[in-house]
């Protein structure tokens, strides 16, 4: 009996440590705390729906479909910038720094009057294990946050951006060169 309990405790500890080792991304609660109102657009594509999108795409783009199969989820949240709490830009920069501390690498960082764009990727060998896009756009009065969780073929990032309509993601080929 004791052996069984110990084995169970060991397995639980192992799974907990694996979860802790996983570099964190943006949680919905973290983002919601930055604004007084709920997001005006929220999209969560995960699980069987992502599998379905992959299969629907397979006929025309089998490689892209294979990559979609390797994703765990695509999450988009867009807020009205006028509902931001004080210090939004600083808090977003802090998010960016915390991603860097967790091993994420900067793919794009644009700081222009009226617009801040951050794109981060989590490299793992020849592939990426995650991608985060944060856009604060004063011109369009919107703040957009996109998280793509799972294995991403770097060659397919632009295609991914166009498929899911992710702002700035289809420009990344130019940025990487």
């Amino acid at each position, binding site marked *: 009996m004791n052996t069984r309990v110990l084995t169970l405790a060991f397995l639980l500890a192992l799974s907990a440590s694996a979860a802790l080792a996983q570099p964190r991304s943006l949680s919905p609660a973290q983002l919601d705390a930055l604004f007084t109102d709920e997001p005006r*657009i929220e999209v969560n594509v995960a699980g069987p729906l992502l599998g379905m999108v992959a299969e629907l795409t397979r006929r025309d783009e089998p490689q892209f479909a294979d990559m979609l199969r390797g994703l765990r989820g695509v999450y988009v949240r867009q807020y009205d910038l006028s509902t931001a709490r004080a210090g939004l830009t600083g808090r977003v920069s802090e998010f960016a720094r915390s991603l860097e501390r967790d091993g994420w690498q900067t793919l794009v960082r644009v700081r222009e009057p009226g617009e801040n764009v951050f794109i981060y990727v989590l490299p793992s060998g020849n592939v990426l294990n995650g991608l985060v896009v944060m856009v604060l756009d004063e011109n369009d009065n919107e703040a957009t946050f996109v998280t793509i969780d799972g294995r991403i073929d770097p060659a397919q990032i632009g295609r991914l951006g166009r498929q899911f309509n992710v702002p700035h993601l289809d420009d990344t080929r130019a940025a990487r060169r």
Partner: protein
Amino acid sequence: MALRILSLAALLLGAPLLTGCASTEMRSVRNDLARQMPAADIRDGRTFSFGAVSIGFARLVTGLVGEDAAPARMILRDVRRVKVGRFDVAGPVDADRVRMPARLRRYVERDGWMHLVTFRQDGEAGWVLYRARGERITDLFVTVLSGDELVLARISGNLSEIAFTLLEHADVRMPFFGEALSTDDEAAVDEAALSED
């Protein structure tokens, strides 16, 4: 014998109307939104529920139409139930602040539904939820609230198969959140990226 055939025909013809009874689920969503927006007037609308008999009847009709209706017949084969509600709305609708109705939240938190989309834009608000069994999407619930109407729709069946059927017969490239580019467009994007170097 003739009477039995006539009765059956009447039952089949009347089925879509007889099943147009009020749906508690739809009214619950409507009432929740009405409570959230006391200044707006969400009126008593109509809700319809189409089950096996109505859908079977529709399939029968599409079977009589001929080959033109073949895609519709194939889609109907995978539909198990459809519920639709429409309510007139008058008065101010604050789409930016309206929250997901409690019944839908309960579906997500307790009943295994997944939250696909929320939108609040241009005076409209909406929610799309779905439910899956294994790899198959089995239910879809769409709520759209605008300044003049509230529309609710719930469809159950093998929705993954319906999506494949639509794609196969409509001969379109994958239309999801972004429009897929043609090969020529992809090449143009690559060329533009190179020219920026």
